[in-house]
């Protein structure tokens, strides 16, 4: 039962609870398609604290809450208001729980949402903590794979790009250890997956940490592409060469299986050429639109 529970890490959600969320998200998708207004969370209030800029995640949470008939209060610049006054996160949360029924937090430091959950009697949802977890993104990624390919077990997932700083790949990779899958990891040396993530994978997990891109493409069911940030490179030429060898073009899609999909947490910069967008394999916009039904499902199960 997810009722009244905080979701800080993907580990907070059991396999059977995940299945329940997926089913509920299917229902929510149906409601959205039919345009039926829901009153499930009438009178409930969500407070959002984004200590770090976000467009998608924030809009998606706020839209989800509104779609469920609830309302949202938020601090537009959480960073400048409370942190500047030197208030601890623990105090901010204890203030906010008096104003709301559920609290959504994004914070630049790892463990922030966990700390918030310790001090709050109201459920906390982690909307990203530093380079740590982003569980709702992970649930929506898993939901997308399931919806697009009919299931997750037996699939080969290839993650490409910035595997070092991208928290979405860390969360997703850890979540995939609960499934019978093969994972290929492909990145430039300086953006390699950190050891602290690799050390948490089970010994028998089928992961190839130094996969060859072309070989991997042939067997890939899900190509999970992440944003490569210019700021990570001191040398702009190096950035350009990395982008050159890791960007996804129609030629890349040619090498992939017919039924395979390409995912991306968005926003993408140069990693996926716009020519790919019209391909049926391009699932990233469908993936993004899954954010609302998945979050609606989760919120309604926590507050319902």
């Amino acid at each position, binding site marked *: 039962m997810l009722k009244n529970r905080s979701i800080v890490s993907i580990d907070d959600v059991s396999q059977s609870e995940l299945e329940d969320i997926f089913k509920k998200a299917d229902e929510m998708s149906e409601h959205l398609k039919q345009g039926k207004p829901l009153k499930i969370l009438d009178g409930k209030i969500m407070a959002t604290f984004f200590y770090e800029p976000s467009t998608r995640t924030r809009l998606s949470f706020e839209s989800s809450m509104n779609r469920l008939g609830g309302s949202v209060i938020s601090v537009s610049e959480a960073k400048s208001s409370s942190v500047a006054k030197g208030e*601890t996160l*623990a105090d901010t949360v204890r203030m906010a729980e008096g104003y709301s029924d559920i609290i959504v937090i994004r914070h630049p430091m*790892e463990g922030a949402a*966990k700390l918030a959950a*310790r001090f709050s009697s109201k459920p906390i949802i982690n909307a990203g*903590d530093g380079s740590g977890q982003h569980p709702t993104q992970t649930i929506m990624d898993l939901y997308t794979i399931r919806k697009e390919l009919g299931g997750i077990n037996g699939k080969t997932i290839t993650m490409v790009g910035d595997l070092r700083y991208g928290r979405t790949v860390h969360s997703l990779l850890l979540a995939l250890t609960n499934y019978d899958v093969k994972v290929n990891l492909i990145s430039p040396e300086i953006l390699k997956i950190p050891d*602290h993530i690799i050390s948490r994978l089970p010994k028998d997990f089928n992961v190839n940490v130094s996969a060859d891109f072309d070989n991997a493409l042939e067997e890939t069911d899900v190509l999970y592409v992440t944003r490569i940030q210019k700021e990570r490179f001191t040398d702009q030429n190096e950035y350009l060469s990395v982008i050159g060898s890791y960007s996804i073009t129609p030629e890349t899609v040619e090498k992939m299986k017919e039924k395979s999909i390409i995912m991306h947490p968005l926003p993408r910069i140069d990693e996926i050429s716009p020519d790919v967008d019209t391909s049926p394999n391009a699932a990233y916009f469908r993936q993004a639109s899954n954010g609302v039904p998945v979050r609606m499902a989760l919120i309604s199960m926590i507050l319902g």
Partner: protein
Amino acid sequence: MEQTLKISKIKDGTVIDHIAAGKALKVLSILKIDEKSNNYSVSIGIRVPSSKMSYKDVIKIENRNLEKFEVDKISLIAPDASISIVKDYEVTQKYTVELPARIVGIVKCHNANCITNVKEPVSSEFTLVSKKPLVIRCNFCERNMSEREILGSL
């Protein structure tokens, strides 16, 4: 008398025995023996031959009891150490240190970007992942810490 007891007997105090060879100085440093002006004398044996572990370190401290958090710290440095309480030259109590399943407030998280490393009203908190090799995981940022990192943060 056992051959390892080369140091003179203490009347009252604590003996930390079966410390992994070479780790005695680290144990002493967390006990902050040198810091306070104190009235207890300390004898240290480093790499003394031992029947149980071939070589071991041993520390004997006169007039000093160990706090629970100190014993927990010792368990991270020397997981096989045994502690004996000596009263009037006799051992009155003896136990082996034990790595706690939850390690609270004694190790600083190695991840500089962990929320426990800023001004928040929480103690650091870890879960024991593995005894050999020693690995603990931060309950907040979820990062693992290796033995080397732990010894550096005690």
